[in-house]
Every structure is written in structure tokens, then in C-alpha cells.
């Protein structure tokens, strides 16, 4: 994907799904790998409503403006995010979404202030991360997209814990984007959560398992698509 030197990635989901952590870790891992990276949390009109959007650019060379109009890779984690990110689609966009029939946690559209930059850490929303059954996401119907569905929320709920949902997504991103190695994501995780890992080694294990699980899901989805 780095063929043209620059990958533009958008991750969109509900306030409590840990979207910004995905963006931050992804950019940090790219940076650790010696690439140029720029991450900016949700901004602009996209911020309205509980939908949280992370913009990440990974490049071999200098990166221009932090905001962009069309995504090479779009990760969509709730139905509302499908609608909110429609304008970012272009021909050939890789569309990664969560296909689990689990209700994403919703924050009231009108709750001004919740959706600002200063969104509470994902951990605070941990129990809100989807656990209830609900309708699965319906991805767009366009023919010119590569659409990849993964059962992240389902696997998180049944095999790991809902809290590591976003780390599974991150794993899937590693497989799908093909610009980063899993080891670098682990390094980024260590940088961000190292202190916590020291105190609770089981957390490291859990996060790494989630990452591996996501990597496999991503690979499976790619195989199916082919």
C-alpha cells in the first residue's frame, strides 16, 4: 500500500470504542518503524454526534496537511460511522468493518462536549463497549470498494474481553494495510501501557492475544475477498 509513498487511513466508531487509541498506536508504530507518520483526532463536522474519527497518515516522505478528503483505508466500527464517513470513500478504498451482530455503544448525538477532543479515556467507557446483541453494520454497496468484514466485537466478547475490541481492530489493520509489522505495534503498546503492564502482566498477555487474533481475522478476511 505504501507504493505511492503515502497511506491515508481513517478509523471511525462510537465514543467508547477506543478509536483514538487505535489511531495513536498505529501512528506511533509507524513512527517507530522509521516511517513518517501524522495522527490527528476527530475534528471538523465529522465530530458531531457520538462518532469519533481518527485520521492517520503514514508515508515514506514528508506529510502535508493533517486533514485529507479521501481515504485509502477506512475502518468503520458502527452503523452511524458508515454514514458519517461516506464522503471519504473513493474508488479502491479498502473498507474494513466489524460484522458482529453486536450493538455498538451509543453516545447521545446532542451531548455536546462529550465528543470534543477531551473524550474520556476509552477505559472509562469500557463497560459501554458493545456487549448487547443488535443489528450488524451494513457496509456501503459500491462495487469499487474492497469490503472486508471481521467479527471483532463477537470474538472480543466471547473469547477475550470487550475492552480489547480496539486492539483486535488494530491487529486486523496490520494485516490489511500491510505497512506495519505486528512487533512495532507491540512496541507502541509497551510505550503507551508499559507502566500498567508492569503492574498487571496479564494485561500485556490479553492485549497481545487480541492483537494476534485481529491479525488472523484480517488475513482471513483478505483470503475470503480473493
Amino acid at each position, binding site marked *: 500500500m505504501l507504493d505511492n509513498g503515502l497511506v491515508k487511513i481513517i478509523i471511525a466508531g462510537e465514543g467508547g470504542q477506543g478509536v483514538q487509541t487505535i489511531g495513536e498506536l498505529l501512528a506511533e508504530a509507524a513512527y517507530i518503524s522509521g516511517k513518517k507518520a501524522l495522527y490527528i483526532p476527530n475534528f471538523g463536522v465529522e465530530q458531531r454526534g457520538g462518532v469519533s474519527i481518527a485520521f492517520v497518515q503514514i508515508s515514506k516522505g514528508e506529510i502535508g496537511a493533517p486533514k*485529507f478528503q479521501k481515504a485509502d483505508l477506512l475502518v468503520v466500527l458502527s452503523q452511524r460511522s458508515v454514514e458519517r464517513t461516506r464522503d471519504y470513500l473513493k474508488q479502491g478504498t479498502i473498507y474494513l468493518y466489524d460484522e458482529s451482530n453486536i450493538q455498538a455503544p451509543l453516545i447521545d448525538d446532542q451531548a455536546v462536549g462529550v465528543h470534543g477532543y477531551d473524550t474520556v479515556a476509552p477505559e472509562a467507557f469500557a463497560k459501554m463497549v458493545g456487549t448487547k446483541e443488535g443489528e450488524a453494520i451494513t457496509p456501503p454497496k459500491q462495487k469499487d470498494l474492497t469490503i472486508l468484514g471481521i467479527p471483532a466485537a463477537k470474538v472480543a466478547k466471547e473469547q477475550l474481553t470487550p475492552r480489547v475490541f480496539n486492539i483486535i481492530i488494530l491487529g486486523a489493520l496490520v494485516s490489511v494495510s500491510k505497512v506495519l509489522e505486528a512487533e512495532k505495534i507491540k512496541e507502541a503498546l509497551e510505550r503507551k501501557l508499559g507502566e500498567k503492564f508492569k503492574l498487571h502482566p496479564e494485561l500485556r498477555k490479553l492485549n497481545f492475544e487480541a492483537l494476534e487474533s485481529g491479525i488472523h481475522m484480517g488475513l482471513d478476511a483478505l483470503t475470503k475477498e480473493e
Partner: protein
Amino acid sequence: MITESGGVKMAKETLAGEYQEILNNEKEMFMTGNEVVAWAALAAEADFMYGYPITPQNEIMYYWAKLAPAFGRGFLQTEDEISAGFTMLGGALVGKKTFSATAGPGNILMQESISMAEMMRLPGVWIIQQRGGPSTATVIYSQQEFRLTTTGGNGEGMRLVYSTSSHQELFESTIKAFNNAWKYRFPTFVLGDGYQAKMREPVVLFNPKLRNWEIIAAEPIAMKSGVPYLERDPVHLRNTFNIEEELYDILSGHLADFRRMKQEVVEWDEGGSEKADLLVVAHGIVGRAAISAVKTVNNQGLRVKYFRPITVRPFPGEALRKIVSEEPELKILVAESAYGQLLSVVKEELYGLANTIESYLKPGLGITAEEIEEILVRLGKKEG
């Protein structure tokens, strides 16, 4: 009595070395713009930050409050931005390098102290992370504080304002801002925005002294050594004058100093095609989008240049005018996330030239490289 907290003690004993090592080793880091500012203030040998929370600059205070005790530097969270501005000036008055950071409505409240600083030539550095306006608007982003920051207050806008477009420039301009604030004693600003405040990208942190950058020391303006009256004259400062002529004389002196400073501090960035049909003028983060766009269309064969003022006050007007006056057919495009605040300055600087000036104005809204590219392609097409 309150004793020093364990945290502060730990910071002094263990963190100072760690932080110093980062600066002394020219370390590349991946961080947010707010974090960059705190490090730059540290590198510029700032002594004290006085601040009041407002998004999107808050993390500057968080990082400074965390870093400062390790170096014996100070922080005070004041009751509002009015107080933050005036406490800053109190600190500067007695010889400390002081600064604050704010945005939007906080920037409005800060103008009162800035006006006094301008009159009394009290130095200070203000970091402005622009948010949407007018009023509370958004906590996110804009370039709408351009006018307020460059020419706010009830005076002549004798201020030095850097508009940055990358974390590296943010780091370096913040250090320059501290130096020039104490060198020229005009209120000095770093004009960033919510995007720069919150985005993460690589930056090389360095100790300016190791790159042979001079660090200008802060000198006491009042409370110098010696017993006043007996060993030296007492310092009596005021901002109130009795007659018009008295004020006019003082302002004439300040304005002359300001014009002199301009020659020494103006900075800009220009590039693109050697010969051009089009010139894009943009500052800050929009300037960065403009440069991306120009590079793309240059590769497509369009003859386009860019001009990005780095000091937006004083404005590098002569440099801009030189480019434009050399090419009478050159068409100009001004792009900004505001409704004509930069545009009016560009028009003033180019007054009398016949070149067409087009504009792309998006108050409070980010501008992407793709958008500018599209306009350049449209404007750049030769007729026939």
C-alpha cells in the same frame, strides 16, 4: 506550613536528568504540538507559566506543570485569563521569563494584559492555539484569531507573531519567540491552532545552546539590585499619561523600535516554480496544505509558486510584493480558515499592483491539500 509534595521532590531528583538528556541528545520524539510547546519553553529557559485552562491548549499546562519542577521552574493556575496575563507581566517585571497559553475567548480576555505589555514594553510570550470563533464556537480549529492576535487591543498592534505549520517549526519558533520577546520587548506570540495542538508527528527536540543559538537572558525591569534612591534611581512605571503629546512621543519611539525590529525578525517561506502564473498565499497549517498542493500541481506541469509568511506580524510584505511585482500576469490565491483576515493584510501589502487576487475562505474549517489542488488546477489552466 505546607511542605514540598513528594511528587515535586521526585521530579527534582529523578526527572531532571532524564529531561536534560532528551534535550542534550537532539532527540527525535513523536508527540503532540502542545507537548512540543512545553519542551520548547523549557529549552528556551522560560521560568514561569501562568495559565488558565481552555481547550485546545490545556496540555501545554499539563506538560509544563510536569516538567517545570524538575528544573526549578514555576507554574500558577490563575483565576482567569485576565489574571494569567497580568501575573505574567508581574513576573516579567521582576526579571523572569514568563509565558501563558490560551485560545478563543481566553485570547480575548488576555488582550487586556497584552495591551498593557505593548504600552509598557513588558516582555512576554503567549501561545495561541486557535479554536473556532466567534464566541465559544468550537474547541477544535480555525485561523480566526489572526486579527485578534496580530492587532488586538486598543493600540497599534506592536506585536511579534509567529504562525507555525509543523511541530519542528513550532519548537523552533517558540524558542525564537522567547528570545525576541526579551530582546525587543514587544508582546510575542506563537500562533498555532487546534490541529497543531492535538496532532502527533515527529519533532527533533534540541538544546538551543548546543546548536549555538543564543539564549537571551531575562533582566529585571524593576527590582534590580541596589537600594533605590540611595544607590540607584527608583523605577516608576506607568501606562497613564496626561497629555496627547506625551503619549504621542512615547508611541513614536515604540513605533520606531517596531520598524527596526521588523527588519531583523521577518520570516517567510517561498517556493514552487521558478516562473509562475499563480501564487498561493497561506499561513500556518493551511500554508502546509498549500505547499503540498503546489508540489503536486508542479509535478503535473502547472507553473505555481507559494508564499507562506512565518511572521504574520510584522508581515513580510516587501518579500511578497517583490515576487508579485516581478510578474504582472501573476494571479494570487489567498487561502485561510477565516473570512479574509489574512486576505486583508495581503491586499494592503499589494496595494497599487494590478494582479488579480482570488480567495478561498473557510472560517473555522480545515482546508486540505486536495481542495487547494483543485482550485490551482482550475485557475492554472491557460485560456485557449
